[in-house]
């Protein structure tokens, strides 16, 4: 069975190479339909024309065979054995070249046709006999011949032996009108069928487009998932496609599940390692002993290592995770409320602005990490004021997040340095010292960019570009 299918595919492919390949589905369906239609229509128009021709000619022949029958029933011989001119009452056979003719002839020894009597319409011309004469059956023979004035004639010939003389009765009629009729019929049928074919092809095209609509919808929706506007396929699909979308959704949630599991593992690992590190650090306290100093330095190093590798694991998990969107406003609100409270003694005021419908194309945790670290850094360095501005870029493909403070800022020469792992703006300031490099790593993972400028407020201005759009 399979073998036969392959052969069939091969045959189709050799006839039409694109059936094998990845040609458009619409194109394939329409090409197949077109082949079938064109073949069917050619057959139908040929058949119809042939049938019309046959029935018209048959009706047409009835006239001339009547004449032939009349000829031989009225044929009489006179005493001298000569054939008398039969009396036929048909006005048209009396008018010259009227298009209706008859002729009584006798065959000579060499079977040549010798005319004895002719209708007046023939004038002095003769009608030709058939090319092959069936002398046995006594049935009339119909054939086409050239008449006087080159008229195309349909003729009938009847061979009879009367009183042992080989007589051939011939009648003919101008068939040009019949030919014209048949031609016209073929033309009308042909054009009607072409119109039908074109109409049907258009209908098929529409049908295919509409029929395959769910497939195009699916493509659009998958695109939306890819670009992060949706996290799963939500559209309603016909039963033929529904299993595919179900599988895709299952795949998407599997991806999300894997990410969640990774994250839980990562969190557990962090928890498991960090409490012992806290113990070591607290134990060392601020003792001036060299051992305590070593412990302090080594724990800081271990913490940095743990953080770094946990982030790597997270980033790897993120790679399979697509389709999530995080509204900016609630995250900024939470972070502002929280950090203002943490830095309440300092009286930090975070003035943030973000369009309500702006959404980061990525995970909430990552956005919290990016904005949280930058904002915390600003809180540490500012005098009182922090200004946060999130705007959609002109191309509407990303957002620019500006975080400015009114602190002392930092020299331009250090802008790149602080993004390096473990670098710290000031060793004496609180904070992990990893914050900015974490942010830089995350921003890069999203194909974004982080750089620094001098703020109009006096301090540092962090500029972050991230993928985003409006909801």
């Amino acid at each position, binding site marked *: 069975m399979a073998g036969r299918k392959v052969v069939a595919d091969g045959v189709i492919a050799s006839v039409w190479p694109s059936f094998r390949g990845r040609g458009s589905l619409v194109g394939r369906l329409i090409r197949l339909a077109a082949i079938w239609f064109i073949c069917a229509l050619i057959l139908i128009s040929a058949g119809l024309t042939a049938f019309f021709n046959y029935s018209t000619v048959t009706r047409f022949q009835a006239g001339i065979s009547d004449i032939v029958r009349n000829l031989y029933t009225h044929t009489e011989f006179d005493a001298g054995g000569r054939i008398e001119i039969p009396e036929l009452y048909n006005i048209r056979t009396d008018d010259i070249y009227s298009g209706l003719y008859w002729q009584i002839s006798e065959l000579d020894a060499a079977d040549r046709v010798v005319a004895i009597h002719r209708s007046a319409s023939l004038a002095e011309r003769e009608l030709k006999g058939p090319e092959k004469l069936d002398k046995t059956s006594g049935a009339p023979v119909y054939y086409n011949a050239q008449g006087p004035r080159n008229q195309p004639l349909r003729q009938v010939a009847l061979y009879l032996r009367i009183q042992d003389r080989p007589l051939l009765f011939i009648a003919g009629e101008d068939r040009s009108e019949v030919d014209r009729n048949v031609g016209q019929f073929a033309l009308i049928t042909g054009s009607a069928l072409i119109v039908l074919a074109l109409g049907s092809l258009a209908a098929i095209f529409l049908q295919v487009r509409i029929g395959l609509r769910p497939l195009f919808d699916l493509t659009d929706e998958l695109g939306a998932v890819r670009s992060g506007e949706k996290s799963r396929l939500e559209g309603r699909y016909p039963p033929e496609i529904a299993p595919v979308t179900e599988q895709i959704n299952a795949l998407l949630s599997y991806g999300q599940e894997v990410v969640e599991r990774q994250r839980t593992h990562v*969190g557990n690992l*962090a*928890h498991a*390692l*960090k*409490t*012992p*590190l*806290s*113990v*070591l*650090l*607290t*134990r060392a*306290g*601020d003792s001036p002993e060299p051992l305590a100093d070593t412990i302090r330095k080594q*724990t800081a190093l271990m*913490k940095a290592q743990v*953080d770094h590798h946990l982030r790597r694991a997270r980033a790897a998990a993120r790679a399979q995770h697509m389709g999530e969107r995080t509204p900016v406003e609630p995250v900024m*609100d*939470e*972070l*502002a*409320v*929280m950090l*203002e*409270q*943490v830095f*309440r*003694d300092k009286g*930090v*005021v*975070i*003035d*943030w*602005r973000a369009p*309500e419908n702006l959404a980061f194309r990525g995970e*909430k*945790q990552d956005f*919290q*990490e990016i*904005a*949280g*670290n930058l904002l915390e850094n600003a809180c540490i360095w500012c005098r*009182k*004021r922090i200004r946060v501005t999130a705007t959609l870029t002109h191309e509407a493909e990303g957002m620019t997040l500006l975080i400015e403070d009114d602190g002392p800022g930092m020299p331009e020469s250090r802008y790149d340095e602080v993004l390096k792992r473990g670098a710290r703006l000031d060793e004496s300031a*609180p904070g*992990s010292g990893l914050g900015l490099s974490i942010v830089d790593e995350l921003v890069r993972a999203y194909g974004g960019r982080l750089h620094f400028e001098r703020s109009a407020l006096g301090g540092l201005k962090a500029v972050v570009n991230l993928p985003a759009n409006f909801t």
Partner: protein
Amino acid sequence: MRILLAEDDPDLSRQLKSSLSDAGYVVDHAPDGEEAHFLGDTEPYDCIILDLGLPKIDGVSVLERWRRDGKATPVLILTARGAWSDKVSGFDAGADDYLTKPFHTEELLARLRALVRRAAGHAQPLLVCGGLRLDPRAARASVNGEPLRLTSLEYRLLHYMMLHNERVISRIELVEHLYDQDFDRDSNTIEVFMGRLRKKIGTERIETVRGLGYRLKPLPDEVSGI
């Protein structure tokens, strides 16, 4: 100064307890969430140090219960999970400060001092407008008993409006009281903050008086209820 230390790791607890005692605090220790909740609920602590990864009941749930029961004791959370999502959920539950493990003991002590000092501010009258309550001392506000999470600018706005309860306040007046002098004041600032504030306290509580400004008012059923 009495302090509750809720931490499950015995080594860390022992060391912290001795450091805190050295610093002059009286320390109670709870090794799990259940005991932490019970102690925090019954004893009058000046501050609570709460590890989020506690056995039996996790730190965030313990904190949520305290806050639901109206406990206002300042809480410093300790977390090994340095992610911002964990910090944010801690603050949503009602934490006042956080510290990520591993930390230096001096830093913990500094944070503690700040929290205790903050909590001991001067008593100021509670502002009330219908279901809205604002405690200027703790800088906390609530609506129908639910704590509100306000940024400082939103808080300032609400505070000013509650001080001038049921009076129409012009936009200019609001801008002047919202910002210090050196802040830039763009024209739509007030609309932005009104929008956010309305989202948090309920749209109907702030009435826009066309051409004049805004007015804070209790809900109709709250008025008739009194």
